[in-house]
């Protein structure tokens, strides 16, 4: 079946429009050319004589306006050289090489095509289609390759894809005048967290969308506090702002699904005066694939993936959800973790089942877990313990400071154990549960010790304590409501007998519960 060529209407240098196909025009040659292509210059005189012959209509879309002018002058052309400097028609025809000559019938169906210049092919074409035309074929080279179409220039190709009718981009376009400073503009619009961002041009967003198979218009979540539809495209725009690579996008998408889950309660996490923010822990094979750092400096700066994925989540919550400091973000002090916080567990260095497996996923699944933190990472320094029990006890006492030493049962904690500490723990076969139970044991205090007094407030209310029966007053209360409120992972450098701790926000149904989401393609 003949190929129907895309219809178009382009103007020549005088502004006269030429439509293709055109009724009553008969057969038409459409030949794409650009002026700086030697092979195009080679064939222009041939197209001109074909045009003068009159049997076939000849149209030559040229890829630059100035180039068209030069071509017309240089070769004394009277054939319509058409302005396709926007490259829309070249793009629609998927031109890879110029010259590209297409012969079409009156209805615009392709009859034959010539690419580049092969003298025998072109001569045969002229002999078949316009035998009366005379040309000095022997003076022409036997073969010349064509040149790359301008539409193949990588930067231009992405722009054209972004602008085409079937573009996956639907977001509002914002034009920035040449006189404006792009970075200042982005700050002025409130799109940033205070640090510079990568301008989300259509080309960059398209590249970002290449990181996922999901449809760009799929609504991933309704994002609080605005409950705005967060499409894959909108999230990709924020991932560009944050400095992500396309490979990071699936992690960002899963992280956003996790924090916008009702159990995680991102609305409350944003709004609280306690300055809570999500910590993202990544598990599974995707860690190495996207370059997440789980070793030296895992919780700090220096890794693009760690920094950009966490930041993309924060910027999406800010820009799509509308959570901004002073608006629905009402943190008393703020928190540097509100810029970014994402790290992977070093599963291979840990003798324990990794976090995602504990939470019901398969080892081969890639998973992101969101935890709402308010303080930390707080360092537990214990360089002298030689038994697992001692290390576990040190971690326990360090956890007592969460929120307030006298505040028990209020929160969760995320415990990041270093390789050296986990070695000591595992030498004595301390499992994660053993660690949890020992933390509960060493932090358990008689309720009487947790009551506010004249020297220290902030503890258990004295009037409630006074109203309790004696047996309840003397009971021992561990730091955490249940050992499951302790979430444990391994990360960090080989050297360092430390454990790093994130204190949680309000725990349980009244606050935030950690949520895990599988990372898709």
């Amino acid at each position, binding site marked *: 079946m003949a190929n129907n060529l895309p219809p178009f209407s382009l103007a020549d240098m005088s502004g006269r429009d030429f439509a293709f196909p055109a009724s009553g025009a008969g057969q038409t040659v459409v030949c794409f050319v650009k002026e*700086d292509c030697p092979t195009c210059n080679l064939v222009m*005189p041939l197209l001109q004589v074909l045009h003068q012959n009159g049997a076939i209509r000849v149209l030559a879309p040229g890829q630059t306006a100035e180039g068209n002018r030069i071509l017309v002058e240089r070769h004394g052309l009277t054939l319509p050289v058409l302005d396709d*400097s926007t490259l829309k028609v070249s793009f629609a025809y998927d031109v890879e090489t110029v010259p590209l000559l297409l012969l079409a019938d009156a209805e615009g169906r392709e009859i034959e095509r010539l690419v580049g210049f092969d003298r025998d092919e072109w001569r045969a074409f002229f002999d078949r289609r316009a035998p009366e035309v005379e040309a000095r074929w022997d003076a022409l080279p036997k073969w010349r390759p064509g040149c790359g179409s301008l539409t193949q220039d990588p930067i231009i190709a992405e722009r054209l894809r972004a602008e085409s009718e079937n573009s996956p981009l639907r977001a509002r376009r914002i034009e920035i005048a040449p006189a404006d400073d792009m970075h200042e503009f982005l700050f002025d619009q409130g799109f940033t967290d205070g640090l510079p961002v990568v301008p989300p041009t259509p080309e960059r967003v398209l590249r970002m969308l290449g990181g996922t198979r999901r449809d760009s218009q799929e609504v991933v979540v309704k994002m609080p506090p605005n409950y705005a539809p967060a499409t894959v495209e909108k999230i990709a725009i924020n991932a560009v702002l944050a400095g992500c690579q396309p490979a990071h996008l699936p992690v960002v998408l899963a992280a956003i699904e996790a924090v916008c889950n009702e159990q995680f309660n991102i609305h409350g996490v944003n709004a609280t005066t306690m300055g809570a923010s999500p910590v993202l822990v990544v598990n599974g094979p995707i860690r190495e694939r996207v370059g997440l750092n789980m070793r030296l400096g895992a919780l700090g700066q220096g890794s693009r993936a760690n920094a950009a994925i966490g930041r993309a989540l924060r910027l999406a919550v800010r820009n799509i959800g509308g959570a901004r400091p002073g608006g629905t973000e009402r943190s008393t002090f703020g928190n540097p973790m509100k810029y970014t916080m994402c790290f992977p567990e070093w599963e291979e260095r840990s003798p324990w089942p990794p976090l995602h497996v504990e939470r019901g996923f398969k080892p081969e699944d890639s998973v992101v877990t969101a935890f709402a933190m308010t303080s930390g990472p707080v360092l537990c320094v214990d360089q002298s313990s030689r038994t697992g029990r001692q290390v576990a006890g040190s971690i326990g006492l360090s956890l007592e400071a969460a929120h307030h030493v006298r505040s028990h049962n209020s929160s969760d904690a995320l415990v990041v154990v270093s390789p050296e500490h986990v070695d000591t723990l595992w030498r004595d076969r301390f499992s994660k549960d053993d660690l949890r139970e020992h933390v509960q044991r060493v932090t358990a205090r008689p309720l009487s010790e947790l009551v506010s007094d004249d020297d220290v407030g902030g503890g258990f209310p004295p009037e409630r304590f006074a109203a309790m029966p004696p047996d309840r007053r003397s009971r021992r209360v561990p730091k955490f409501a249940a050992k499951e409120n302790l979430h444990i992972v391994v990360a960090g450098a080989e050297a360092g007998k430390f454990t790093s701790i994130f204190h949680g926000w309000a725990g349980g149904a009244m606050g935030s519960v950690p949520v895990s989401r599988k990372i898709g393609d």
Partner: protein
Amino acid sequence: MRYVCGWSASVERPRDQDFHKRSKLMATILDPTDERVPVARSITERPGAIAGNVALLDIAKPRGNVLLDRLEQRLTEQLPGITVRRYAKPTFTKPAPDALRQEIRADNDFVIEALAD
């Protein structure tokens, strides 16, 4: 640099001047926000006098009830004709459930919400 090709033409490159011109034109970025057009909100018209049912909503922050107790006492002293009804959110960390909001709206003429911090 000059290229000689075919039978007549000699060409200089680069010639794609339009491309360089285009790059100096408008830059385009995509809007990272939810594109919500800001809505101007007006305050409900003030009635001039308080009568009927007055809801007191406790958002469940510590000591919010102390403030509301005092408010209820002062309101009933100064406006003996009104009826005060007490409501509470399950948790201050989340918006009030729809059912609670509808109940307050259906049964009351006024609502006072006790914020903390």
